[in-house]
């Protein structure tokens, strides 16, 4: 059952990877394919859940969703093959030869410079830390096959209703469901799990478990390969150390909750903004927006990400006096947001955050005791959380950026826009805590570290994208002042 479960993820992951290849077919080295695979995995899973929602809406009892995915995959493969054939020797030959060329370059007898040695050493350390941390995650999941509390009571429960409910799948989001089950939460995980269960014709805990692993690996792969593409292999490997070596992030991957998938989509959206600046193609702005839309389709905090990212990109457009990119961003948001709007207004019950009325919300927002409590908790984690020996990982990254920043700073617009978006996201979390309908002490204790998980991979990526590479540090060339 475990192998079959894994195989059910092949169509959506391949669809996402092929789609990315079709819009970015001029890059074909091995790291480029790893980047396409990592970003494509999330893209495919996001698209698959949207498609499954439409499938459920129009053909609720049909069991042909997997067939539909396979047909789409084959169609994309034919298009990619035809396109490859008209441009060169064919997609497979071209990709394979480019991959082998890259491999030959990477693994040909190296010139044993200090730079090369440092790159190999960092790559070894990055892979080692990732492998050991991932083993820990697998072992954690083995003992908790159903995932953590939130996973099985919210997402896996919804998936169970959809899988068992047939034409009455909407019962998963019934307003009659007790509030504790958060039936209003966005459905990306539940739809993905239910779609795979339908493909298998059985419920198995392997599906949500593998889904969690996939998003964790996709986040690691996207950060590694994007930094390899933008900067160097050593920089990508160092990102693996920072991500896999941060227990507060890696530990979440085995819990089957929506936090790591959301972190992946935020990271992917930011990576596409960098690709927009590097490649100069608007399609990457639309893909950044699509990933932001998937973030909103994954978790309510993702909707905040859509709002803050759209706002910052709009302000950037005002500053540049060009709304070209902003329009592409809106276009990319269209499909996921239309379906999310439909889901929120036609299927899901109203959110518990919306209750209380404006007066109560204003009262909570201006309550000094609540402000003090939230500020203390958030600044405490920001300064001391997730790091080593009492020093938080975020101050470490800030110090790292100061010590390693390039002059002039690389990708200035993307770096500025990304930091603005991620800072605004944190400010949004601060405001959400203030208006929280729950007991604030409990709510902060239960969720604080997970909020920082959402932005952590993106912060690591932006800091390292703007920083000097480890290879340059270990090169023996020294500029005299």
């Amino acid at each position, binding site marked *: 059952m475990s192998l079959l479960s894994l195989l059910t993820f092949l169509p959506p992951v391949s669809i996402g990877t092929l789609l990315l290849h079709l819009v970015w077919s001029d890059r074909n080295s091995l790291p480029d394919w790893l980047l396409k695979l990592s970003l494509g995995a999330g893209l495919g899973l996001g698209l698959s859940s949207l498609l499954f929602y439409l499938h459920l809406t129009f053909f609720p009892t049909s069991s042909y969703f997997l067939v539909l995915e396979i047909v789409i995959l084959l169609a994309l493969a034919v298009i990619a093959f035809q396109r490859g054939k008209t441009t060169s020797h064919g997609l497979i030959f071209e990709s394979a030869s480019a991959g082998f060329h890259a491999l030959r370059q990477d693994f040909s007898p190296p010139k044993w410079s200090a730079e090369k040695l440092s790159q190999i050493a*960092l790559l070894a*350390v990055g892979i*080692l*830390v*990732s492998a*050991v*941390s991932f*083993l*820990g*995650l697998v*072992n*954690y999941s083995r*003992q*908790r*096959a*159903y995932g953590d*509390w939130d996973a*099985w*009571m919210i997402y*896996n*429960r919804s998936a*169970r*209703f959809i899988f*068992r*409910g047939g034409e*009455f799948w909407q*019962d*998963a989001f*019934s307003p*009659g*469901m*007790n509030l*504790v*089950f958060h039936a209003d939460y966005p459905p990306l995980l539940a739809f993905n799990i239910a779609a795979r269960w339908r493909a298998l014709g059985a419920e198995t*805990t392997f599906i949500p478990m593998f889904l969690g692993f996939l998003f964790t690996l996709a986040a690691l792969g996207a950060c590694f390969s994007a930094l390899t593409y933008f900067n160097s292999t050593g920089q990508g490997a*160092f990102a693996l*150390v*920072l991500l*896999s*070596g*941060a*227990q507060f992030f*890696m*530990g979440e991957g085995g819990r089957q909750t929506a936090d790591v998938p959301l972190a992946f989509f935020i990271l992917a959206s930011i990576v596409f903004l960098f690709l927009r600046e590097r490649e100069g193609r608007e399609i990457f702005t639309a893909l950044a927006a699509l990933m932001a839309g998937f973030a909103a389709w994954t978790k309510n905090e993702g909707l905040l990400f859509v709002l803050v990212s759209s706002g910052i990109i709009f302000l950037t457009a005002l500053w540049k006096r060009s709304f070209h990119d902003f329009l592409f961003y809106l276009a990319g948001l269209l499909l996921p947001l239309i379906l999310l709007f439909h889901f929120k207004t036609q299927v899901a019950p109203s959110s518990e955050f919306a209750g209380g009325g404006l007066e109560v919300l204003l009262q909570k927002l201006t309550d000094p005791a609540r402000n003090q409590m939230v500020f203390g908790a958030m600044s405490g984690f920001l300064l001391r959380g997730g790091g*080593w020996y009492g020093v938080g990982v975020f101050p*470490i990254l800030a110090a*790292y950026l100061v*010590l*390693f920043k390039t002059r002039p700073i690389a990708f200035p617009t993307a770096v500025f826009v990304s930091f603005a978006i991620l800072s605004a996201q944190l400010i949004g979390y601060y405001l959400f805590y203030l208006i929280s309908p729950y007991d604030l002490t409990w709510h902060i204790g239960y969720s604080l570290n997970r909020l920082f998980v959402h932005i952590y991979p993106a912060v690591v990526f932006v800091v390292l994208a703007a920083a*000097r590479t*480890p290879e340059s*540090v*270990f090169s023996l060339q*020294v*500029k005299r*002042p």
Partner: protein
Amino acid sequence: MSMWKKILQGMVLAVIAGLGIKTGIESLQTSFAERSNDSEVISAWNERLEKLIEPIPFERGFVGYLSNEDIPGANFDSNDAEGEFVLTQYAVAPLILARGAEQDWVILNLDPETLKKWREENKDQFEVVRSGGGMTLAHRVTK
């Protein structure tokens, strides 16, 4: 870039790499040390409820749920009570649990003493259909 800055940067990279390895190994050790029986508990609860709700003649709709928490004066632990409610909802899906005894079918998760008292008070309204694993399924008596 001065040599001293490069040395400092090299040291920072080496220290972070070392700390990353340390955390990775510690995470693996922790995953072995922190044993959990969550899977067994959830699987057992699923099996128990699957048998209990067999007599319910419909596959979707609302089913009542009563625990000690809902009975005035009965003893309960709030964490356990919420956990058992959530476990029960997960197990009976796609039936939806509604707290209270307003539905025609009600799952009773009561301690023996409270159950006895509840049955006496409601003997004209509910009949016990099935019991097992510390839980009871009751059906409203049709007159």
